[in-house]
């Protein structure tokens, strides 16, 4: 009998039920999409920022000081210590190896160049552009093209030669200021230490590299006679913004706390792990990037969180209003049921069962629609879809149930308070 009442109520009141269902589904798709976007926006932004700049820098421990002014290094290449290039793959072996998005080694020295028969002095920088590498079964490529997003090249990026090419002069980039001052353009030939380069592109880096010549690392190693060595490595690592826990001194932590610290991707714990893997290397955070981006990201995540809360409350209210509206119109039914002898409990359970069915169906539909929305938002803004965690589904279903029950309860109680006779007469 009870089931039949519920069934018939759905069959005969299709319009009312579909309004309620629509409202729940809409509200829950808001909730799903906002929860997904709000929880993922921090990660997506971090990834986006990591493409524009590295956040860790590696230098040899026993190094002499860099004497660097206006982008020109005044330290002789023969002085100081180096990092073996082969060791860099160990970066991938650390606990948070997957968070190492990329790295770019650097080796540089001022050199005398000749172009168009004129000679000039400039910094020669060797680095990876998009060097293919292999760590275990993991094949990837890394270099300035992926971690220095602010570098813009007009023309072609050079390739990363493994050794000096036999048949042609290796390609290099010329900084935009240097190119302007020396009237160089794409295709020109530059001679350094008796060897010829071909300019394949003009580099606009917005930094001291604009006055330098940037060449593939192995070519520069050959010219500087430092095979297999680099002076500096910048690393782009996905990190968790520093919080008060990260600021504590790891040496003073208890064992369990230290484990927690070690297993959190803070910039300083990743730096510590890199130092463990490469003991001859000093790891510093590029604090201007690391510290400030953390702050900005915290603001964005906070904003999205608050907006999500506001949207959740709004959709809860909207659903409650819709539920209340559909139930309020059913006083006559309540009056009829009560005059036929139904108890308050029976009436309430009938309405709540209906609400529960609506909530479950609406939540499922809303979850699907919300996931699609989140995916589209992610795709259009970050170029990669925002995935909705399956753990969100039970939250959505239970909050749909809660909201519909709360929304219906008031209206059902109100409907039951009236004397059935008064309601049926139409006086209420």
């Amino acid at each position, binding site marked *: 009998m009870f089931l039949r009442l519920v069934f018939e109520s759905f069959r005969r009141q299709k*319009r009312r039920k579909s*309004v309620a269902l*629509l*409202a729940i589904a*809409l*509200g829950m798709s*808001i909730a799903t*999409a*906002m929860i997904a*976007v709000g929880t993922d*926006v921090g990660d997506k932004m971090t990834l*986006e*920022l990591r493409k*524009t*700049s590295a956040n860790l*820098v590696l*230098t040899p421990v026993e*190094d002499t*000081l*860099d*004497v*660097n*002014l*206006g982008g020109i290094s*005044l*330290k002789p290449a023969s002085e100081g210590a180096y990092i073996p290039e082969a060791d860099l793959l160990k970066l991938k072996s650390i606990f948070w190896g997957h968070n190492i998005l990329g790295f770019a080694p650097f080796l540089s020295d001022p050199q005398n160049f000749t172009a168009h028969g004129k000679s000039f002095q400039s910094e020669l920088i060797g680095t990876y552009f998009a060097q293919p590498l292999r760590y275990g079964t993991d094949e990837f490529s890394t270099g300035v093209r992926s971690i220095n997003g*602010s570098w813009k090249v007009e023309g072609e990026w050079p390739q990363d030669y493994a050794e000096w090419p036999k048949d042609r002069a290796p390609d290099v980039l010329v900084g935009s200021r240097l190119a302007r001052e020396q009237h160089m353009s794409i295709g020109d030939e530059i001679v350094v230490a008796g060897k010829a380069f071909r300019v394949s592109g003009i580099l606009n*880096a*917005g*930094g001291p590299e604009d006055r330098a010549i940037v060449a593939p690392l192995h070519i520069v190693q050959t010219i500087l006679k430092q095979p297999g060595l680099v002076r500096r490595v910048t690393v782009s690592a996905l990190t968790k913004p520093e919080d008060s826990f990260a600021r504590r001194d790891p040496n003073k932590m208890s064992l369990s706390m230290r484990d927690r610290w070690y297993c959190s991707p803070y910039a300083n714990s990743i730096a510590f792990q890199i130092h463990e893997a490469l003991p001859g290397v000093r790891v*510093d955070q*590029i*604090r*201007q*990037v690391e510290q*400030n*981006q953390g702050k*900005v990201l915290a*603001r*964005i995540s*906070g*904003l*999205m969180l*608050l*907006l999500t809360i506001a*949207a959740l409350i*709004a*959709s809860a209210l*909207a659903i*409650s*209003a*819709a539920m*209340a*509206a559909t139930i*309020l*119109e059913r006083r006559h039914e309540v009056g009829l049921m009560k005059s036929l002898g139904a108890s308050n409990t029976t009436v309430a359970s009938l309405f709540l069962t209906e609400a529960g069915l609506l909530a479950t169906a609406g939540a499922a539909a809303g979850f699907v629609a919300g996931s699609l*929305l989140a995916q589209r*938002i992610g795709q259009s803004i*970050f170029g990669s879809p925002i995935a909705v965690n399956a753990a969100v589904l039970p939250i959505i279903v239970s909050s749909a149930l809660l909201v519909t029950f709360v929304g219906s309860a008031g209206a059902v109680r*109100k409907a039951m308070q009236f004397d059935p006779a008064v309601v049926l007469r139409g006086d209420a």
Partner: protein
Amino acid sequence: VSRQRLFFRLVMKDAWVRKDRAITALLSVAVVAAMATVALTIYYDLEVKMSREFRSFGANVVVSKHNGSLTADELTKMDAVVGSKGDVVPVGYAIATMPSGQKIVIGGANLDKLLELNSWWSLTVRDKSGALIGTRANDIIPAGPLRLSFAGVSEQIAPGTVIHSGSEDDDRIYISRESLFKWTGVQPNTALVRMDGRPQEIQNAINQLRSSLPQLDVEPVRQITQTQTAVLGRTRSIVLAASIVVVVLIMLCMVATFTSSVLERRKDFAVMKALGASNRAVNLLFASESVLLALAGGIAGFIVGTGVAYWIGKVNFEAAIPPQFNLLPPVLLGSIVLALLAAMAPIRMLQRIQPAQILRGE
């Protein structure tokens, strides 16, 4: 009873007698208006609020002179452009020699301003009055006072604070501008400039600097300016996309509720028609009810929404997001249009049916 009074009474009575119905309709309009107000108010102020966060990134423009040092006139011109919306810190550099024969870069600047500009530096303070020593330099120099020489003139430097920056400043020592000048005769040839504002405003200021100081190099620190542009752009689009989704969906929800509550009143409608009301009179009655509800709901929603946006600003940006009163007319207008659409569609439908049929319950 005059026609107007009767009409007014009908509108009022209807809202009063069926209070819960009026309240649910009002609530659903208010929720839409509030959410739209929150989203628009935040979106409106977002660029300004987020740009403030980029102050802490420090210098975003570097002005340098290739030959010679910056003149007082050039510094005044820079100050004139930057004004109160930023900071200018002139720095001079010299290369000194340590007793070991190693070379080191010495910078001369107003140290307090330099520290303020580079607020992200992590500091290990030993002596507030001493020099700022880069962390890598600190690892290499011998303990105690440091004797450096420049062009044969030697100078003793008292290490004060160790700075950790992760940039080339880690290899440098900073002393006050006056001490550097007294020792080496070197005057600032570089100015680190922090320009506050939105990306467009910063670009304008750079152009202004370039045109008023044509003989100097004015270069934006691309990493910083580009990060700002990227972050602001993405944040604006994500807030906009999320707001559109929320507001549109919640609007649909409201329209459904509203339409349904009008449809539930088909009996009222039929009785009115049966008593001889014209289509126009009925339309007017339902429309004015909807407009009244939408106005009340819209105003309530605007107030609540402004409050929520203010609170979000306080909590998240530590600065309130001020009410945007210019949003009130569009929010009210939007509420009214929506309510009218939601109410009039079902009325149009009902008008095609004979009142008798409705009253019979078919």
